[in-house]
């Protein structure tokens, strides 16, 4: 007696979004990246389409970061003072996308100027062929000043600009709209807040297929269960047909996991934590994989070994289609 598996027939689907533009489309990328399009829960190939694999971005900074784990500083030591080289190394390490996170201050401790930000972005674009996401320093005024300059100087590249939050999104959305870019929209782990911000942004006139939503996550041990569940709920809502949740999801497990003490600190910690470097990479990998399982379309990571593992896992998750149809 063959087992009959009940199949979910979902009325809704996630939008497809393409990052980056080829020369023929007005950009300079060698490759573009498309995400989204799911018509089923993550990797349930037997009842719907998962047309595009989740992708892995590597996060780099415009200068040597002040607050990163010494393990990461060591990993990227040879390139860490030069965003172009760092980006090239990240691409080499397997990044499908680069996230360039601009710093609030430059090497000399002065506020990063719009000219400096533009120079970093252009250098990264010149050094790589993959699409680029640019995050501001995370302070409204600086974000707006730097991102507007970057947006104008890279018109047509289909960058994703972030981070839009409910307190600061108008300027970023307006400049993305005017220059053919995308935005990332972050809300604190809440389905309704995510919907609301997507509505506010699309009300300004930016089409929904140019918005990536970032539902926020916590690291393993520091709130990942909330991120995991809110992503599952958002994806379920999208499949059930709720238009304002039908956007691909981007999350930053690298940032979260490497902020945790387990990754940052090697000495004076319990012996049961084990080897520092491996523990830190495991922290990032497990955080990222858990989120891939709950519906992440883009995961932003920091360590090349995590990138390798997560990409290998995604390949297998996608390849399973062959075994069920």
């Amino acid at each position: 007696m063959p087992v009959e598996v009940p199949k979910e027939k979902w009325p809704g689907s996630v939008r497809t979004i393409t990052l980056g533009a080829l020369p023929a489309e007005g950009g300079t990328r060698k490759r573009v990246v498309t995400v989204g399009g799911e018509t089923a829960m993550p990797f349930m190939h037997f009842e719907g389409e998962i047309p595009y694999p989740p992708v892995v971005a590597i996060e780099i900074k415009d200068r040597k970061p002040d607050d990163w784990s010494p393990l990461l500083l060591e990993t990227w030591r040879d390139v860490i003072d030069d965003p172009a080289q760092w980006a090239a190394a990240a691409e080499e390490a397997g990044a499908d996308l680069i996230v360039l996170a601009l710093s609030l201050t430059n090497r000399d401790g002065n506020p990063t100027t719009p000219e400096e930000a533009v120079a970093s972005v252009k250098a990264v674009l010149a050094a790589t062929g993959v699409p680029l996401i640019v995050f501001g320093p995370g302070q409204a005024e600086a974000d707006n000043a730097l991102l507007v300059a970057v947006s104008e100087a890279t018109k047509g590249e289909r960058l994703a600009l972030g981070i839009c939050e409910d307190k600061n999104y108008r300027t970023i959305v307006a400049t993305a709209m005017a220059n053919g870019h995308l935005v990332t929209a972050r809300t604190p782990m809440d389905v309704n807040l995510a919907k609301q911000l997507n509505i506010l942004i699309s009300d300004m006139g930016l089409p929904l297929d140019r918005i990536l939503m970032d539902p926020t996550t916590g690291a393993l041990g520091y709130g990942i269960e909330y991120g995991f569940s809110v992503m599952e709920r958002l994806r379920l809502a999208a499949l059930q047909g709720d238009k304002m949740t039908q956007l691909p999801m981007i999350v930053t497990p690298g940032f979260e996991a490497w902020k945790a003490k387990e990754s940052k600190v090697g000495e004076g910690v319990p012996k049961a934590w084990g080897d520092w470097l491996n523990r830190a990479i495991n922290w990032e990998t497990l955080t990222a994989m858990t989120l891939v399982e709950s519906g992440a379309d883009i995961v932003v990571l920091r360590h090349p070994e995590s990138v390798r593992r997560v990409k290998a896992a995604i390949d297998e998750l996608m390849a399973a289609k062959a075994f069920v149809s």
Partner: protein
Amino acid sequence: MALSGIQIYKLLPQTNCKECGFPTCLAFAMKLAAKQVELSACPYVSEESKAQLQESSAPPIRLITLKSDGYEIKAGNEVVMFRHEKTFYNKPGVFAKIKTSAAEADVKELAGRINDYRVNYVGIDLEVDGIAVEDDARNADKMQKTLSVIRSVSKKPVMLFSDNVASIEAGLSQLSGETPLIGCADSENWEKFAELAKQSKAALAVIADTLDGLAELSEKAKAKGVEDLVLVPKGKNLGHELILQSQIRRLALKANFRSLGYPTLAFCQTHAQIAQAIAKYAGFLVIDQFAEELVYPLLVLRQNIYTDPQKPIQVQPGLYEINNPQPTDPVLVTTNFSITYFSVANEVEGSGLPAYLLVADAEGMSVLTAWAAGKFDAERIAKAVKAANLDTRMSRKRLVLPGAVAVLSGEVEAELPGWEIRVGPREAVDIPKFYKQVLQVN
């Protein structure tokens, strides 16, 4: 699947004799459906109906308990596909592998390390649940020897895996009075395994690479009298494992498909398999290699995913003394979310520096979450200071705020005249440095 009140009513005598304490059989049936009464309250139900009612009220995923002297580990009894729908109940049992080909001394050393592993996460001691013995030597003597060595250093539950039934038998001889798991029974050898499981009252793992294969095996084993079964869906890769695990859970919960209504087991070699097994439905995990730096994040992930979404883990608000503080030492204020409290308390404790930790009642939320929700403001902080009598208790009044809520410092100053309000670092890791460089200096 649970029957409705009407369905239950059809199985009752329908005489309305009232002996159950309800005016009608229908009223009693409704209460039964709502699980507010026991079937035994009606003296007149037929044996046949009883059996049907019991069958239908059995949990859709059977609860399996592995036992050894002093230990018990449960899997099954789950009721939802997604944790936000209610919660996941029984944390998947984590078993670390030991091979029978290993030298005796190595077995002893590894079994000891697995047994003794203990790590504290937000005040909870996390451990590995047991040891899985893999008979890669395919040798009954080795199996017996390995088990006796393991039992000399660990009493935790075990699993025995071999395709050689004689090895399993030899292993079981060392485990009298326990309920281990044995396996994996496949379509070839299932009969001998089923007999052995029945005799020894062990739980039986059945393995197949399709749902049909698993269902068939579980039905056959059940017909032989083995009820405690564990399913091992052998996927062709990570993605196939995810699909099989999800389909098993779905069939059990949504279709009340009894033949697959058992907990599952996942053999994990990679990090991705581990994350997936915890997030997506494994009842037991067997990890290939035991390493502290892997087991720690694994146990934390399991703890997180199996936290009840309705109840964040909290600590009692109030004043905590760390490293014997004196009335001149600083008071560090934080919230009563467990993760927050322990991040801070562990730092202070580890540094050896004396301090008071004042835990405000922020309804179990992290610093920024509570601040954003209006549960951690100047007023609440001042209230906590007063509740702990700190005005009279402290001779030097220094209050350190978490760096994340630096914006509160003005208001807290206004609420607490006579107190020096300091803004600490954003991350707890930086507290010791801040303490030495700022608090001790002035």
